[in-house]
């Protein structure tokens, strides 16, 4: 029973993830794109749970599904949409862009399937203790630098959109 469940769950998540990714790229309405992006992020969180990275999955839901989706929806709200709904199919770059992406994708996906071995099982207790030990010992300095990066991004975003008095 359990032997069938995990590959089945993986297949379901993979189909929904790639399908909603395609909808993000192909949809005409930008709100459709934004909501399917959130759905893709949720499916990605499911993938992380399947891999045994529950903490990363929780971060994924908090940061991507929560914060970034809301931020993108604010961007949709503040900018005019629907000026060129036909833009996807009637422009010069589309064939070239799709060709470049497909040419680069084919060998990469072929190489990806070459990894035959299975992911290792987790030690008991999930990934939280290992993650915390790594962040606060080996990666303590990059962790602090990341906080400076976030502060700089916040100040930069405010400075960019501030109205000139």
């Amino acid at each position, binding site marked *: 029973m359990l*032997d069938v469940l995990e590959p089945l769950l993986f297949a379901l998540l993979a189909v929904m993830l790639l399908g909603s990714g395609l909808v993000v790229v192909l949809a005409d309405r930008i709100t459709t794109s934004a909501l399917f992006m959130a759905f893709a992020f949720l499916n990605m969180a499911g993938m992380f749970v399947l891999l045994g990275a529950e903490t990363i999955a929780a971060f994924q839901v908090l940061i991507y599904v929560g914060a970034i989706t809301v931020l993108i929806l604010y961007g949709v709200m503040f900018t005019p949409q629907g000026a060129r709904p036909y833009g996807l199919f009637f422009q010069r770059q589309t064939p070239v*862009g799709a060709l470049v*992406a497909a040419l*680069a994708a084919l060998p990469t996906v072929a190489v990806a399937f070459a990894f035959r071995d299975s992911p290792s099982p987790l030690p008991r207790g999930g990934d939280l203790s290992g993650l915390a*030990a790594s962040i606060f010992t080996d990666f303590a300095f990059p962790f602090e630098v990341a906080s400076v990066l976030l502060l700089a991004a916040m100040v930069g975003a405010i400075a960019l959109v501030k109205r000139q008095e």
Partner: protein
Amino acid sequence: MTSLVPLGAFIAVSAALFFIGLGGVLVRRNAVVILMCVELMLNAANLAFVAFSRRLGVLDERGSVFVVFVFVVAAAEVAVGLAIVLALYRNRPTVDVDEVTEIKG
């Protein structure tokens, strides 16, 4: 008990999602949609990081640590990116990247 799904399947899904995002960045002309596609690409890279971290996983969680840093950079990137889009829209009323040619050589 080891996982029943091979590592290659996770990596293949990650690569496929990455190139869906890349195609979106190359094809779409709306700046906000381009930001969304960049987020999809970053997320695909996260899946590869976590999968490979699982492969070497009994040692430590370094791959997952990199995922945390990717989260930080993605949050900073989307905040600054949207600020740029809004500043652009304030200067001229468009979010179409084809029509923004002021600093084109």
